[in-house]
């Protein structure tokens, strides 16, 4: 079982698959970028941010990056542009704004 590697970059032959299609490592979905689903993008103003982390806990896609208990920006590889972060940002801060994605 230890030798089995999941290759997310290509279609594997059935002989290479683990028994029961087991995936031996966690979080392989990080290899799949959902950022191209987006039609609008959040723009974050760091100076207005009060670091309440409401956006972080409310983001469905783990696209809010935190470091040392502080929000440090968005990960656009995974952000689907739903706009929840902008909606939950407290009105006294309103540090996140949604803008249309340009080509």
């Amino acid at each position, binding site marked *: 079982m230890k030798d089995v590697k*999941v290759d997310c970059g290509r279609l594997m032959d059935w002989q290479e698959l683990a028994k029961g299609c087991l995936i031996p490592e966690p979080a392989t*979905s990080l290899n*799949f970028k*959902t950022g191209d689903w*987006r039609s609008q993008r959040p723009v974050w103003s760091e100076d207005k941010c009060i670091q309440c982390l409401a956006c972080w806990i*409310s983001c469905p*896609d*783990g696209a809010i990056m935190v470091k040392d208990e502080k929000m440090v920006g968005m990960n656009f590889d995974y952000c689907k542009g739903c706009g929840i972060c902008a909606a939950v940002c407290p009105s006294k801060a309103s540090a996140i704004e949604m803008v249309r994605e340009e080509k």
Partner: protein
Amino acid sequence: MLNLKQLASKEKVGLAGGHRACAGCGFPQIISMIFGQSPAPVVSGCSTGCMEIATTIYPFTAWRGNFMHSAFENSAATISGIETAYRALKKQGRLPADENLNFVALGGDGGTYDIGFQALSGAMERGHNMLYVCYNNEAYMNTGVQRSSATPQGGHTTTSPAGKVIPGKTQYPKDLTGIMAAHSIPYVAQGSVGYHIDLMRKADKAFSIEGPKFMNVYTPCRLGWGSDPAKTMEIARLAVDTCMWPLYEVVDGQWKLTRKVREKKGITEFYKTQNRFRHLLKPENDEFVKEIQAEVDRRWHVLLSKCGEGA
């Protein structure tokens, strides 16, 4: 309870990015809020539903811990089996006795209220040390929005279509949390994804209790409800503020309201945010809406008296 800052300092919380849930979905947040509070590693399993298929499209998995697939009806049975096997292996000395794992079974409202109900009831009755989390979005969303016994009265689904003959679903939703409380298990709670502090506190409490636990968590589905994806959290809060989805917990048979609604909003406030209730805002359905409001009020007063609150 770990607060948001402490939770953020944990390295990896909740689902990994790259899962295929819709933009503005509600369930990934439930996983970070609940799993984040567990002091021990979590072994989970999920019955068929959006959560299962969107997070585990081979060879991708968005889960950070051990996860097991199960069929639509047996997520509770699968996890109770894993929990028993773990206890047996510990007893035989094949696994270290001082380590600990938490077991969480997940299911949507279809897999919990209807199809998985007997497996859930059985697992709770046998007294396994596990937590069952139902993420309730009030219909079978994964298969294309069919009515379930959690769908509220008046809700439009493909199998209870609103039209000239019926104004959406005609039956009242089943009170599953009440049914689980009747199993006399140590902990039963009803939460909403919109009130994250409340939900995280409940998860923390659930993980600190030995024995079977059940949580019913309300989460909007932007696709099936026809709502604005950005308003997912707002709608989840509105359901609580209109008393359609009260937040409470039952600890060892003691009912406790965890969010007191001071200014109760009318249910039409909630209906305005979603397309599935659009037909109820038409004047010809006024009487029907009044009926639903009366039932919501009645259930709210019954709950208040159970919790020992003044009505």
